[in-house]
Each structure stands twice: as C-alpha cells, then as structure tokens.
C-alpha cells in the first residue's frame, strides 16, 4: 500500500488528496489563509492575491487557492515576507475603495475592510479617482450594483457563468475603468439574468446587494436576526436564512432579506433561486387574512372571533357527517404545510370524523 502524499504546512506534515489545492489542505487542517476572490463552488481564479503563500524553492509567492499540493512541498502561510506583501496589497486595494462601510446598515459585511483592519494595512496611501461605471438606472427590482465598492474579484461573474450558467454579467471595460456590466449595459431585467441573486451571495464587499433593505431603510440600530429555515417553494428544500428586523412591522418582525448558508453545509450548497432569495413580500402583504371569517345567512363573509369560527366549523362538519355519513366528508390537506400539520389533518379525518377521505395536492 502506497503511503498517502504529504506536504509540510507551517512546520507540520499533513496529508492531502491528489487534486487538492494548498488552500483546501490548509482549511481542512484549520490553518487560516485569507481570501477575497475564492469561493469553494467556483474554479480557482487566483485573482485577488490575498492568499499568497511561500513555497520552499519557489522564487515567487504562490496563490494557495490556485496551486495544487504536490508531495514534499514545504509551505509557509505566515511569515514576515507574506505579511509585508499582504499589507501592501491591502493598502493598494484601499486606495480604490471607500474607507468606511457605508452599506453595513443593509447587513452586508465588507470582507475587504475587515481584512485591512485585521492585518493592520496602511490606510494613508491616498485615493485613486473612481472611474468604474455602475448601472444606476437599472430598473431590475432586486439587485443593486455599487461600482465604487467593487474590487473586481469577479466572483459574481464567475458564479453567473459557472454555477447559474446564464452569463448575464461580465467584466467590461479596460484598466481603471473595468467594471461589472451586462451586454449593452441593459437592465438585468432585460438580459438572460434569472435573478438568482448568487452575485450578491458571493460578493465579498457588498458591491452587489439587495435593493429591498435599502428601500426599507433598514437602520443600523436595528440589528438583523438570522433564522435558518427551509424554503417554501419547490421540492428541493433549500436551506436559507431569513434576515429579520425584529422591531419591524410594529414588533411583529419584518423580513428584510434572505441570505444563503455557507456553501458545503446544506444540500443546496448555498445556492438559491429568484423565488427563494427574493419572493418573501407575500409574508407582509396587506391582503393577508388576519381574522376568522364566517358566512352569514345573507351569504356575506363576516369577521368573527376564533371561538365562534371554530364552533361553526365543528358543528358544520359534524352536521354533514350526521346527514351523509363520515364518507360524506372530504379533507384536503396541503403539501405547502408542515409534516406536523399534515399529520394532524389525517388524524382529524380518521380519528375525529372516521373517514379515510384525506389527500393533498401531491397528485396535482
């Protein structure tokens, strides 16, 4: 049996699977290497250079995300040279980036700012003129692009190509005018974009963000709570995090956005579609039923108390059973409701009313 290949990482020998990158090996072994352009779902780009490591015998530093482990490599992820390099790199990024996190109120953390602070990157290298064009007129309802905050790591465009495969956005322009754009600078609404919002999910700086929290003017003094739940649309069962302004809607709580779980932790791998990520306004819609209704003798529906509605319902259903037998009743349960609720409906039909006439929209 051949021995599993090893590298030396930060002085310790660690095994790796053929094909793994140095970043994969490091993360699997709990060694922190910072990244901005990396996403485990995407092919390595090696674009942001924040993950540079030193490999013995190599003249230049190498990006850990795009360098495959080879048996016998001796790798350093932290030393004076790497630190000096990283500080310079982050300082350069900051010359082309707003110094404060203006969009923090939307709950989108800026990984670049956090990293610059964590590594104590110099902040006095001056400011470059902002030349990247945004699409302020884009009338798409969901996705906002803030060109100034963009660092051109291309996670969004690569996600759009490699995962969603619709290639609606692309790197456009040259040099300092390079930006993220669409064909002919069309609104996303008029492109192949399916508005999955993956571009928002992968963006490390919040340059891509949801329009909804902006519209709601979610304020920083209302910290957002996150609730992990299961999407209520199709049968894929994506896990998602409802971001809730708990003080919103008069204390009822207001969903202000939906974010993805960490890739690799749930079976949707952090991916969501347009409905899962954006279609939650129905929760807060003014058409929601808020009171029990009972139809009066005049044929009109009227608001009533729970007590009354439950009484009328129970008597009505039992009346039908008396007149037509238990099988004169039909119970339509719902594949939109929870398992527990479906369990209760079939139990109600079978135990309380004595019929097996219970089904749900599975057939339709």
């Amino acid at each position: 049996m051949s021995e599993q290949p090893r590298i030396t990482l930060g002085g310790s020998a660690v095994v790796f699977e053929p094909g793994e990158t140095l970043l994969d090996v490091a993360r699997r072994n709990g060694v922190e290497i910072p990244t901005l352009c990396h996403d485990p779902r995407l092919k390595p780009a090696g674009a942001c250079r924040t993950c540079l490591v030193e490999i013995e015998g190599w003249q230049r530093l190498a990006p850990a995300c795009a360098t495959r482990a080879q048996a016998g490599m001796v790798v350093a992820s932290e030393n004076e040279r790497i630190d000096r390099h990283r500080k310079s790199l982050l300082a350069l990024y900051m010359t082309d980036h707003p110094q404060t996190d203006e969009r923090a109120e939307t709950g989108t953390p800026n990984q670049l700012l956090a990293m610059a602070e964590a590594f104590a990157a110099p902040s006095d290298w001056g400011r470059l003129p902002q030349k990247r064009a945004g699409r302020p007129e884009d009338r798409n309802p969901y996705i906002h692009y803030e060109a100034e905050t963009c660092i051109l790591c291309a996670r969004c465009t690569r996600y759009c190509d490699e995962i969603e495969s619709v290639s609606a956005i692309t790197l456009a322009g040259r040099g300092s005018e390079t930006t993220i754009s669409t064909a002919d600078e069309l609104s996303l609404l008029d492109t192949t974009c399916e508005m999955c919002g993956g571009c928002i999910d992968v963006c490390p700086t919040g340059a891509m963000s949801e329009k909804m929290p902006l519209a709601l003017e979610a304020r920083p003094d209302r910290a957002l709570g996150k609730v992990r739940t299961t999407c209520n649309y199709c049968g894929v069962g994506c896990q998602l995090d409802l971001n809730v302004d708990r003080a919103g809607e008069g204390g009822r709580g207001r969903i202000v956005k939906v974010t993805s779980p960490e890739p690799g932790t749930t079976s949707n791998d952090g991916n969501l579609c347009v409905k899962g990520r954006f279609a939650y306004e129905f929760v807060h819609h003014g058409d929601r039923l808020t009171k029990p209704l009972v139809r009066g003798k005049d044929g009109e529906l009227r608001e009533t108390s729970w007590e009354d509605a439950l009484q009328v319902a129970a008597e009505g259903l039992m009346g039908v059973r008396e007149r037509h037998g238990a099988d004169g009743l039909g119970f339509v349960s719902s594949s939109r409701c929870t398992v527990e609720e479906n369990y209760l409906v079939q139990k109600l039909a079978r135990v309380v009313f004595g019929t097996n006439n219970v089904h749900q929209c599975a057939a339709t």
Partner: protein
Amino acid sequence: MTNSIPEIRDVDFLFVIGSNTSEAHPIIAMEMKLAVARGATLVVADPRAIWMTEIAEKHLQLKPGTDVWLLNAMAHVIVEEDLTDQAFVEAHTEGFGDVRRTVAKYTPEEAERVTGVSAEEIRWAARRYATTDKAGIYYTLGITEHSHGTDNVYALANLVLMTGHLGRRSTGLNPLRGQNNVQGANDAGATPVFYPGYQRVDDPEVQAKYEESWGVELRPEPGLNLNEMMKAVGKEIFGLFVMGEDVLLSEPNVLRLEKALNANEFLVMQDVFINETARFADVIFPATVFAEKDGVFVNSERRVQRVRKAVDPPGKARADWKILIDLAKACGTTWSFDGPGEIYAEMVRDAPKFAGISYERLENEVNHGYTGLQWPCATPEDPGSEYLHKGGVLRGKGLFTSVDYRPSMELPDEEYGLLLSTGRTLYHYNSATQTRREPGLIAKQPEAFVEIHPSDARKRGIEDGDRVEIRTRRGAVQAQAILSRQVRPRCIWTPLHFSEARANVLTNDAGDTVTGTAEYKVCAAEVSRVEGGAEGEHFPGSFYRESGPPR
C-alpha cells in the same frame, strides 16, 4: 428520489424526461449544470425546447403523451443489443420475461413514427444509458400528469432495473418533488391509502396498531383520492375541509367543480389569502406562512429539515397546527400538544421509517456532510439514507411491470386542432397567491401567456403579443400569444399560475388509472385571435420567441 441532490454533480449520464428543471427546480438544475461542465452527458426528453436543452448533448423532442413508446423502444434496444445487466436482473428483480416480450414489438423505427424522435437517436440514448456506469434518470410532472402517468413511471423503472442502475451513488431513478412538502405530506399519511410512513390502512396489523395508539376504531377501506374527491363533490361528498390549497385554481376542469360546489353543504377553508375557493367557504380560518411557524418539511431527497418561526403572524392569524388542535377540541376531543416537536414525536413513534428522527437530532447533527436527516432512518444512531436500495432492492426483488402504450384521453381533432400542455415557470409558483404579490416577479412575468409555434400562429392570423382565446371542450380563457419555436408545431403551452386566465378551466380531469393524477399535460385545444383585445403586457428578458432577445 432514490439518490441525493449533491450526488447529481457526479452523474455521468443524465436522462431528464418531463422535467423543466431550470424553471421548476432551479437548484437541482445547477447541480446538473455542474455535471455537464465536468463532462457528463445530458439528454433531455421533452416536447418543449426548454433551457436545459441548450446544454444537452441531445434533445429528444417527443410528441406529448408518447413517453411509453419512447421508453419501451429504448428498452427494446437494450434487450436487442444485449446491454442488460444480467447479474443484477437475476439477483435483484422479478418479471423481466414479461417486459422482454412486451418491448419486442416497440421497435425504434415504429417509435419514430409515433413519438417524432428519430430511431437513431433512440438507439443512441438507449446505448449510452445502458453502458454508462453512473446514469441517473430525473423526471417530474411531465411524466406523471397523464392518464397513463403510472405506466410512464413503470416504463422508466423497467429501464432502471434491466440496466442495474440502482442502489448506488449517483445512479438511480429520481422523481423531483414539485412542492416544498409533497414528500412530507405523503410521509405524514395525508393520503387515502396510508397511515404515516406508508403503512396501508387496509393492513390489519397496521390498523390494530393505530387503533391502540389513537384509542378509536379505524376504517380499513381506503378513502377517495383528491381527483375522486373533487368529482364526488355534490354527489357523495357534501362537506369539505380545505387547508392551504386553492382547489378552484389547481384542480383540473374547474368549471365542473364550481358547479358541483353549489351542491356542497359546508366548506371550511384554512389559508393565508382569500382565493377562488373562498367564494364557496362557510368558515375561513386565517393561517400562517412558513416564516411564522415551526415544523419540518421533507424535500425531494427524503431529507427532513426544520422550518423555524422568524416573524409573528399578522393580526389574529394562527399557526395551522394550532388551528387544527383547536378544531379537534371544538369537535369534543382533548387533543393536547405543546408544539410541533411533540406532534412530530407522536408521528414517528408508530412509523418505523422515521423512527430515528427527532427535533433534537435535526438541531444538532450533521450526517453525510449536510444538515437534516434522510429517511429511512430507523434508530437514533442511524445516520439516515443518502440513497435507497443499497445492497439490494428494498422490497426484496425489484418488480418489472410490463406496460403498453395507451393514447392520451383527448387528442387534437378537426374541431380542436392543437395539443395543449400546462406547466410552471421560474417566476411564479402554482396558484401564484404568493408570487403574484411580489413586484419583482410581476415585472418579469406580468400576465398569462400561451406559447404557440409560428406556423400554427400564421394559419390563425395570430401575431406575437396578440390577445388570444384558448378554448377546449370545457372552457375558454384569454392570454397573450408568444410566438415561440420552443413548442412543437401543433402544440401549445400555457402556465397554470394566473387566476384571471385559469389554465384549469381548460384541462381534462381524466385521471391516471392508479393515482388519480389528472392529465394536465395533454388535451385538445384551439386558439383564436381576440379582435380588439387589450394590449399585452411587456415581458422583459429572455423569452425564447421568434423575435426578441436571444436566450
């Protein structure tokens, strides 16, 4: 699904039939896209040139309703060319002889005549499926919403069994569930034939177990399925309890149902919005949406996952589980549960398939790399099942079922010259009570439309964007005509989402002979231009139409 969603990216041959995956199951489509990018072969069998065909090696554009012909002809090729997995067939199946005899007459040449898919392509697809080790079949309502839907599924299962494509990772037969908790609703026993966990109501042992558990006498005769129930309204059924479904939008041939509801005596409805069904309701309980309650949903891959309350219900609305307990109490019971966790625990106590699953485990554990637990999961130590039939078919022997082609119940004729199929789009969801209250989705897809092939449109003097009337023997609705080469000539397609143009006014309520599932995918229809009709709304973006932006 016999397999798990994350296994899809490692499949080498994907056979997608009757599933508009990128619109109806976008995240599963993403996994398929990854597989194709890695080098997998994707074959799409669908009457429409759906998005997935853009990345498919081949598109088998069969005529709607001819699936049995296509699949039996594939089986024919596999038998004829000796591509069966003999060892698997002998060890794990029964009834192959019957199928072998039946498929003998389904030659690819004759199949070409019936289905419109060339004999050469049928041979190619059959060979590639049979000879690829990791081959997965993915299907959904395009297979089941037929009067012969069960036959379609049997024909697929026969292919799986004769090639031994079962019981392994990334290899199996995968129906993609259409709704968030279709799987869970069935698991929970909201079906006329099963108690929770697929235990038959007519099995005396099961009956005895539940009689003891629930302390009442139970009925051994299966009840009516939904399709039968709706047809019985006003004849045998005079009282309905309807939770979370708009039967007057989602059931087939709704005008007949509407008439029948006039003879219904009492209807209780529990929902979150006023809908079409509300017109017939005597009592309406204001219920809650997923974000307002706790519980579990079960997804397509049998994964039980938590639903968690994030916001309070509006006004006096109550969680559905609370309402059901309150109603049971109003009917004189003493039901008492302190919450969904306790209800779930009661359910799994008598259902061996789920016996190992608990809220505590769902909260704290990661199994096979992901959160949630996939049934079967028999004990608290069981990590759950990523894929089914591991090391042998669950029922002991995989049963071949020989099926013969039966034409759809209503096919085009001189009066109704087009074949209508209905379905779902990416931007809306079923009866669209939720998605049509979402401004962004309305912007993308504002109103009802019907896809019609340019050649059929021309014959009828219809231009792109015209207001048209779609008619069948059951009723008529209006929609905007989208001239599209996505549909076959003489076929039209319309989504079911729009309450002002209810597609189910049109559809045939002929049900599948076994399941009662209605034939939403095939009926005869005709289309004509509405003179002076309203100007159509603009659909921005990526319609696959004759004029307009490319996809």
